[in-house]
């Protein structure tokens, strides 16, 4: 792929000399009489376009197709030549659209047949074209600036399409010589200039056009290298639709386009609205969209005529969309399209259908066999794209399911909460540049990353790892504390939340922790609140460096949780609360080392242990996790030494290992295989052997595959 190939810059040079005002001698009936009004009226005489009109509308059609398919980085400079050169636009992207060109052409108007032919020449235009090719485009400039010392990698190539009426082959040669000489001269100039670039390669496409019915004085000539810099080709074409056809072929050649005909498009008849007929619409697009057909040389593609290389079109069948559901297709390429016959009724019906937001799948017509959907037409923001869908076998077929891998057996992920998180962290375009306080440009995407960092400072992944995120009462605080800056109102809300929690504690309201982890009695209420307060503190501490207001929330939290008189009383009862708080405070301070994850993981494991005991009560929020295989608790609650039973200063580790040991020793009993095993190996499917000796071996084989 090269950005700066010949098709980066195209210069149109259209002859505006007096003889171009001549008629193309192809008549157009424009007064088509409508039925039932025809009596006695003679239709107006047909009119005919001039050579100029034919040239201009054909070159506009070339540009239309090009702009449709390549709205950027493919540029046109339009020059009209008579007694001088009139450059109608520049290489800048703003000048690259049909409206600009049409307005400029209208200002030029048709050639004046009464002007002095001696002062008029196409040469003025050709010289101006070479000059234009030396001028740097904004894309070339940008590439040179970013490449710095490698700026010489930026190529400068271009194409000149010259539509004129030449007198003879030697006249054509004279034009070619002139272009070659001019390139030579301008390259010398450009060598000493920062604003100009030397032309490395120029393709001259000379189109000689003449009225229908006349003999051509100029012969066709295929592309020929005139010098290392210049190649030239000559096309001798009759005016009228022949010229338009030629330019249509050239735009396909120059921009590597290919044609697809959508067939079987059902459409309401204009006259009889209740009947529908099938139509075909031909579209142009980059030929990469046919890469599968090109490479495999597939001949099943219909309508593929070998003769006349450019009449080739690939036929694809319309599949009427059944639903409006949004699906993510595996799409290997998307290419902008342009209808060949943009104004025809079938074309505009198709494009309007797509522009209204519907997508259409396209099927390869096959003589036999299964239906193969290979493409999709879809519009995005008023632009229609031909999507190439992968129709070959996937190399990723039959992958291991996510539930079989790491973390796949966990059943209480906070799927809904993370969905909410994702919606809050959706992206939106910021087209106006924004500036930071220090005046530097702010990159919106960096802001997005920043926000993700803040929002995930404390984010437990599973329900049993958290208390506060299972509490509706904490939401007002949790939703604003992650913000970069809080308003006074936010702080007030946080404080209210904290007071509310204090209130709940005083009223001895139950917390969600008790119902998640255990059946029957959970940890005692005050223990629950201690866990909750600790977790809340971890969350708030993770954000205290955001602003002073965040700090104020922490202060409020600390003040509230250490003060209540009930708490004081409980402390007297011998709980070593203070120690633990100090510890958790320390942990909270350097949240960036993610100590919470460590402690939470431990807690999570503990909790999960409980959860295994009471899996029936677990909130199943993970759609891909399998159903717990055995809902019956392995051991009963009474036998479990639970957290709340432990008295005195007991470390978390000893709690944990005690529990694991007890649990494991009980679990072990259940493995009869292991009890009966020899050298730790037990024979499987013994009963099958007893029942049916033959089948066992077969099963064994199947199992290995």
């Amino acid at each position, binding site marked *: 792929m090269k950005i700066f190939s010949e098709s980066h810059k195209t210069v149109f040079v259209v002859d505006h000399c007096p003889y171009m005002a001549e008629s193309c001698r192809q008549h157009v009936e424009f007064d088509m009489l409508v039925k039932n009004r025809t009596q006695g009226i003679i239709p107006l005489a047909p009119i005919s376009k001039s050579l100029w009109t034919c040239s201009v509308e054909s070159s506009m059609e070339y540009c239309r197709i090009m702009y449709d398919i390549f709205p950027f980085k493919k540029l046109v400079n339009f020059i009209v030549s008579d007694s001088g050169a009139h450059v109608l636009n520049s290489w800048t992207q703003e000048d690259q659209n049909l409206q600009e060109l049409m*307005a400029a052409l209208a200002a030029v108007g048709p050639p004046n047949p009464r002007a002095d032919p001696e002062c008029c020449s196409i040469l003025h235009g050709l010289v101006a074209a070479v000059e234009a090719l030396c001028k740097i485009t904004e894309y070339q400039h940008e590439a040179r600036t970013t490449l710095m010392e490698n700026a010489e990698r930026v190529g400068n190539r271009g194409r000149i399409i010259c539509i004129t009426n030449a007198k003879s082959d030697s006249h054509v040669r004279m034009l070619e010589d002139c272009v070659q000489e001019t390139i030579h001269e301008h390259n010398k100039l450009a060598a000493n200039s920062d604003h100009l670039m030397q032309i490395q390669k120029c393709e001259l496409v000379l189109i000689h056009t003449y009225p229908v019915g006349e003999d051509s004085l100029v012969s066709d000539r295929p592309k020929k290298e005139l010098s290392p810099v210049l190649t030239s080709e000559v096309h001798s074409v009759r005016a009228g639709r022949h010229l338009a056809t030629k330019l249509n072929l050239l735009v396909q050649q120059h921009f590597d386009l290919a044609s697809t005909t959508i067939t079987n498009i059902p459409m309401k008849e204009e006259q009889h609205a209740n009947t529908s007929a099938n139509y075909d619409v031909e579209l142009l697009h980059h030929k990469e969209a046919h890469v*599968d057909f090109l490479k495999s040389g597939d001949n099943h593609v219909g309508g593929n005529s070998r003769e006349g290389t450019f009449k080739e079109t690939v036929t694809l069948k319309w599949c009427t969309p059944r639903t409006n559901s949004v699906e993510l297709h595996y799409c290997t390429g998307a290419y902008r399209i342009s209808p060949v*016959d943009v104004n025809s009724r079938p074309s505009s019906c198709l494009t309007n259908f797509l522009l209204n937001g519907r997508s259409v799948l396209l099927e390869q017509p096959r003589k036999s066999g299964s239906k193969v959907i290979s493409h999709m037409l879809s519009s995005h923001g008023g632009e229609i794209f031909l999507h190439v869908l992968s129709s070959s*076998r996937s190399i990723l077929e039959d*992958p291991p399911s996510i539930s079989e891998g790491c*973390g796949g057996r966990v059943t209480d992920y906070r799927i809904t909460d993370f969905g909410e998180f994702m919606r809050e962290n959706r992206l939106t375009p910021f087209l106006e540049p924004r500036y930071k306080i220090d005046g530097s440009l702010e990159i919106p995407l960096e802001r997005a990353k920043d926000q993700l960092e803040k929002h995930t400072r404390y984010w437990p992944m599973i329900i049993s790892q958290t208390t506060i995120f299972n509490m509706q009462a904490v939401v007002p605080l949790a939703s604003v504390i992650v913000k970069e800056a809080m308003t006074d109102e936010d702080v007030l809300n946080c404080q209210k939340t904290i007071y509310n929690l204090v209130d709940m504690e005083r009223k001895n309201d139950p917390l969600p922790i008790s119902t998640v982890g255990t059946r029957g009695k959970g940890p005692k209420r005050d223990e629950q609140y201690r866990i909750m307060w600790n977790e809340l503190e971890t969350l708030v501490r993770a954000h205290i460096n955001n602003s002073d207001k965040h700090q104020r929330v922490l202060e409020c939290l600390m003040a509230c949780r250490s003060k209540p008189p009930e708490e004081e009383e409980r402390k007297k009862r011998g709980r070593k609360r203070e120690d633990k708080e100090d510890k958790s405070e320390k942990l909270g301070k350097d949240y960036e080392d993610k100590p919470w994850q460590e402690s939470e993981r431990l807690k999570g494991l503990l909790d999960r242990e409980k959860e295994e005991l009471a899996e029936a009560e677990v909130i199943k929020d993970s759609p*891909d996790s399998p159903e717990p295989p055995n809902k019956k608790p392995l051991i009963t609650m009474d036998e479990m030494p639970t957290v709340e039973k432990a008295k005195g200063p007991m470390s978390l580790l000893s709690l944990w290992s005690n529990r694991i040991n007890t649990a494991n020793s009980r679990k072990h009993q259940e493995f009869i295989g292991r009890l009966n095993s020899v050298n730790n190996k037990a024979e499987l499917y013994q009963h099958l052997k007893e029942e049916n000796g033959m089948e066992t071996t077969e099963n064994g084989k199947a199992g290995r595959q």
Partner: protein
Amino acid sequence: MPTVVVMDVSLSMTRPVAVEGSEEYQRKHLAAHGLTMLFEHMATNYKLEFTALVVFSSLWELMVPFTRDYNTLQEALSNMDDYDKTCLESALLGVCNIVQQEWGAAIPCQVVLVTDGCLGIGRGSLRHSLATHSQRSESNRFPLPFPFPSKLYVMCMANLEELQSTDSLDCLERLIDLNNGEGQIFTIDGPLCLKNVQSMFGKLIDLAYTPFHAVLKCGHLTSDVQVFPRPEPFIIDEEIDPIPKAINTDLEIVGFVDIADISSPPVLSRHLVLPIALNREGDEVGPGITDDTEDENSANQIAGKIPNFCVLLHGSLKVEGMVALVQLGPEWYGMLYSQADSKKKSNLMMSLFEPGPEPLPWLGKMAQLGPISDAKENPYGEDDNKSPFPLQPKNKRSYAQNVTVWIKPSGLQTDVQKILRNARKLPEKTQTFYKELNRLRKAALAFGFLELLKGVADMLERECTLLPDTAHPDAAFQLTHAAQQLKVASTGASEYAAYDHNIAPLQTDFSSSGAERM
């Protein structure tokens, strides 16, 4: 990307190798040893790779079609007979057919050619193929370059000195050149022995079959993952930027977008993102298989019970119908989404967009995407009923803006008919009449088609004379006015033929604002 192993089973592969020790080895044994090592590696670390085995001499045969069952491949290695001479061209042609039949032309494949560097004699030998390369027609095209993206690895059961003593190495290098330089030749360092064969295949494994490990990050939430198949480096523009770009091993989520908004974007490649558990030694536990199955099972069970961010992300992406945009490198992005293989199985997938600042025109520049909280009001609406996407392009495409094309007479006739139809419904259709009239006028001026303006003016005048008695009197006024305006424009005189000028309806006593006139 699938692998085709192409094994030379010509007689020259049975040449004995001098090895100290009791057993006598042939080159084919060395080859089988090397391939065994490759298959074992794949079965352990790269087990989702599809591999096929082709053997060839003067003929070729597909021994094992594409499979992930490395036991079958292994078995086939021990069941190979010896045949006649080496005929590489037909074997490569066979590879073309096999790959295209199975995968089409778009999926990249790796071809591992195992040979001893004896390239055959006479017709069908590589020398002969290369000598006649320039005189080929389209019908008997040389199979290289392969019609699909490919890497050709030549594993020579010979050392460099041996290959250089003939022109074998040159021929093989030509082969790689013909495949657009995609591939590499491996030779045995030092004497031919099992150890050196192992080290040669080790190099191939390092180059082509090392699993790609990365860390998936979303702020502080992270997960170690394997990305399969390995993402390959990509060249953006061979002229401006010829250095291949590789993706980061930190895959950083930058934000989320609805599936409807991302809208089936074109991607370079798709990859499974498999969470892995790295233990202290840095070996993975998870998709890999360790020798001790019991250990593995218990390790897998433990890993399965530790909450993993990938699973959480996958679940939420699936439920919400969203994708996560992920940054893969400087100006390179991709997306993560849930992909369902069947009703039950689904997976976290990553697709890579083409590198560049704006891979999807309908999302705009990636760097300009920011958090919705920075916007004045939520661009998704309070009830989640809006979307800031797709972005509208600055200029409309031709099919969206009612352009005028008169290349076919029917285009011109339709436009004239529209004017005429509206002319007959004046004054009700005054607005549309003038709209169509002005559209025609503009195009005619741009194309320098002044004769048409005159023609349409004549036509309108005629319509005026044909008006029935019942016609509204305003119709005649408007028709005459329009005709007259077109006539003056058709002179091309600058004061009447200005492109931006529009013919306005004549203000008459009959029109609503008539009272204000004079």
